[in-house]
């Protein structure tokens, strides 16, 4: 099965556009990029249909062997099973839609071919990540998406803030990758392989409860978690995501909403065999996820830049996914990942449409009343906002509710997770509707800026007189994603999604011992249905009611503060004073990192490593050895004195030594 086509088609597009795009017309560049992405998407659909119709037997493609060192073997191999099928379709599908959107959005920007080249490159790496059948190839994709993210965040590289944001993203990711790499080393050392199939079989043989086994697996899991927090912007490594909004808006939609940031979640779910056997690690995952979700939501309430609000919202929703993974509800996490790709992608694209329509303005305080100028954008964003807030019958409702239920009821779960999750859901609903109302309702508060000559600032498209709707090429993807935000949740109704993913991510209620059995064996087991005793489903319904209530109250509060009594928010902000400022400044986390970590590191490097070791020790040693050679030479130079008698003296002395030695040897 030629699975390798799926990643490699975008790579070809990236190469062609990257190498030759400079000479192509914009139309040609766009056509090439879209063609390869569409081809990849179509082929992915073909593979998916073959998979589904072929009894859901995993499709493997062993292209070549990459490394073979004794028994250790890594191959260029791809695997389509239930989990990677979902990811693959999300990545190619949403990616394709965003490519279409970008064609119109980036119309007036410079570096057109560069943009599409990078975007295709990103698709290549992301698909490698999700389709790989071993950790090392996945890591290649992991690093590659970080690279693509850096390139795209810093796309407007002439702007200092963009360049710095790109650097920040890459460096923060690297810190996480360090943990991931150590985890890989531990895996190789203890299990001797990184191929998923072999590895998970071996991990299964570690009986849960054996002290040594659990300690090692916990360490590996925690290190992997470190990598995931970097890539998926969780505490403590989330700081790069808000800054990443410097990139073009489609980039934010694709990379920082739908696909790249979900790589961490995917990785944890793929490694569920390890995590399920390390309960401590699972708890850490859940705590981090819950904390991040709450924390980011509080910041999101105060932000005024439309993209920043969405960025913190992404961090918060990723927190939900981590919370789900942390209670071993992996399928719920993937489900939310999928719906999140739809509605968050839509929200970002919609924000891009808004920004495009008002000529580059991103501050919501200067927007308002855009509903009449941009109806399509408004209605699609409305659908997405309902989805993210958990309004019933929209996609997000099903996935978020599943997570909250699992957080409450799973053996690894706890009511605390559920409570924090519900409060966060209330806040989510509040700030998302706040965004919607501030942007689209009321009177227009902004001024369109006159046409700029260059293309330096933000995504500046302003040379139209009044706010206006976007072209169809931008609206089309919005509509499609809007439809998906509504219907996308129905695949998860009942336990269909969970059962679908069960061979790969065992249901949270199955015993861990069955995890790691070959897929066929697990499927042969009588499906151990969770005990849906009547009182259990009754509890589930009660909890669902509470979360619906929270969603609507968030909507209500937002309507009250931003439609009815618009003067109130400022008064509340003033009365909260210091607390409000702290939250507005993102709890000063960046400054804390700067003072506590970055500045000591730089100063330490400068003082110790640069001056002390490099200039002092290494250069010093070199200079000292050179000087030593020089001085030794200077001493020996005196031998060549030009004075004949001193030569004679040396000869005589040498001869004397030789004679004495020979005589002495002769007498022995």
């Amino acid at each position: 099965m030629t699975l390798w086509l799926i990643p490699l088609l975008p790579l070809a597009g990236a190469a062609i556009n990257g190498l030759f795009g400079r000479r192509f017309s914009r139309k040609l560049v766009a056509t090439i990029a879209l063609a390869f992405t569409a081809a990849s998407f179509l082929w992915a659909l073909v593979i998916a249909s073959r998979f589904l119709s072929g009894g859901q037997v995993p499709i493997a493609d062993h292209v070549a062997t990459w490394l073979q060192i004794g028994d250790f073997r890594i191959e260029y191999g791809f695997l389509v099973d239930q989990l990677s099928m979902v990811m693959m379709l999300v990545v190619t599908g949403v990616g394709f839609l965003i490519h279409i959107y970008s064609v119109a959005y980036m119309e007036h920007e410079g570096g057109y071919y560069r943009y599409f080249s990078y975007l295709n490159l990103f698709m290549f790496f992301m698909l490698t990540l999700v389709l790989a059948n071993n950790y090392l190839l996945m890591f290649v994709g992991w690093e590659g998406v970080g690279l693509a993210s850096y390139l795209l965040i810093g796309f407007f590289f002439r702007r200092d803030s963009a360049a710095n944001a790109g650097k920040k993203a890459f460096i923060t990711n690297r810190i996480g990758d360090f943990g991931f790499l150590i985890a890989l080393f531990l895996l190789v050392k203890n299990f001797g392989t990184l191929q998923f199939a072999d590895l998970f079989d071996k991990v299964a043989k570690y009986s849960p409860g054996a002290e040594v086994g659990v300690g090692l697996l916990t360490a590996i899991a925690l290190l992997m978690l470190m990598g995931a927090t970097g890539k998926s912007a969780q505490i403590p490594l989330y700081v790069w995501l808000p800054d990443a909004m410097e990139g073009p808006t489609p980039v934010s939609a694709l990379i920082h909403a739908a696909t790249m940031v979900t790589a961490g979640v995917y990785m944890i779910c793929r490694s569920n065999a390890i995590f399920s056997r390390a309960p401590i690690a699972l708890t850490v995952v859940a705590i981090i996820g819950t904390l991040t979700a709450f924390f980011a939501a509080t910041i999101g309430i105060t932000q005024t830049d439309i993209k920043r609000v969405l960025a913190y919202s992404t961090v918060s929703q990723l927190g939900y996914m981590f919370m789900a993974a942390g209670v071993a509800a992996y399928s719920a996490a993937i489900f939310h990942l999928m719906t999140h790709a739809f509605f968050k992608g839509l929200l970002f694209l919609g924000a891009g449409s808004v920004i495009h329509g008002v000529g580059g303005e991103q501050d919501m305080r200067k927007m308002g009343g855009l509903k009449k100028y941009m109806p399509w954008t408004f209605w699609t964003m409305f659908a997405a906002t309902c989805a993210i807030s958990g309004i019933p019958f929209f996609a997000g409702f099903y996935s978020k509710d599943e997570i909250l239920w699992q957080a409450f009821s799973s053996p690894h779960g706890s009511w605390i997770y559920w409570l924090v999750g519900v409060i966060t859901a209330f806040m989510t609903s509040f700030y998302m509707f706040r965004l919607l109302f501030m942007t689209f309702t009321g009177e227009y508060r902004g001024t369109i800026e006159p046409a700029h000559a260059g293309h330096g600032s933000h995504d500046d498209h302003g040379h139209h007189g009044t706010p206006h709707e976007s072209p169809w090429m931008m609206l089309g993807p919005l509509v499609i994603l809007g439809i998906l935000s509504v219907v996308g949740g129905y695949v998860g109704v009942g336990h269909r999604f969970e059962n679908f993913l069960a061979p790969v991510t065992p249901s949270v209620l199955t015993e861990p011992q069955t995890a790691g059995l070959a897929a066929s064996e697990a499927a042969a087991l009588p499906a151990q249905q969770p005990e849906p005793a009547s009182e259990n489903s009754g509890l589930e319904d009660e909890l669902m009611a509470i979360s619906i209530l929270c969603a609507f109250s968030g909507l209500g509060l937002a309507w009250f503060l931003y439609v009815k009594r618009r003067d109130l928010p400022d008064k509340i902000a003033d009365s909260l004073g210091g607390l409000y400022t702290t939250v507005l400044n993102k709890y000063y986390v960046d400054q804390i990192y700067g003072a506590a970590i970055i500045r000591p590191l730089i100063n330490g490097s400068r003082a110790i490593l640069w001056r002390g070791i490099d200039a002092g020790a290494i250069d010093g040693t070199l200079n000292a050895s050179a000087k030593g050679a020089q001085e030794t030479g200077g001493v020996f130079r005196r031998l060549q004195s030009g004075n004949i008698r001193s030569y004679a003296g040396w000869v005589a002395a040498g001869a004397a030594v030789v004679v004495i030695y020979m005589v002495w040897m002769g007498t022995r």
Partner: protein
Amino acid sequence: MLETVLFLIFAAICVGGAINLVAQRHPISSALSLIVVMGSLAMVYLLLGAEFVAAVQIIIYAGAIMVLFVFVIMLLNAGEEERSATGSRVAMVLGVPGLLAAAVTTGWVLTRHGIASTPVVIGEFHGTAHAIGRLLFHEFLLPFEVTSVLILIAIMGAVVLARRGE
């Protein structure tokens, strides 16, 4: 008995000549003392029965080489040796004492060793021209021929080096 006395006389002359060579200031005096040393050495060779070598010593060494030395001294009008400020510390500190040490050690060892106390008796053993000639043209033929080449080279070298430059 006679042998011992003769040896002592000629050895004393040798020693005196050697010391004189080193001590004299004018090179011509040193040259003359060297001739004296060579002459008495020839005598000592005779005491050891090396007739041919003694003759060659007088003829070649004292008669040709030293004459050459005297020619050159007179040609160059070498005067008394002047006092020179720049000596060589190495020569004084290392060379002379080192050499003295070597000499003393060698001497001490030589006089202690068994063979050194054997009296030298010529007996029937003489280094006659006949015997040496036989050796030269049989076992040492190759070195003999090579030395003739060597002399040729020396002649050419000397001629070239001593020419007045054009």
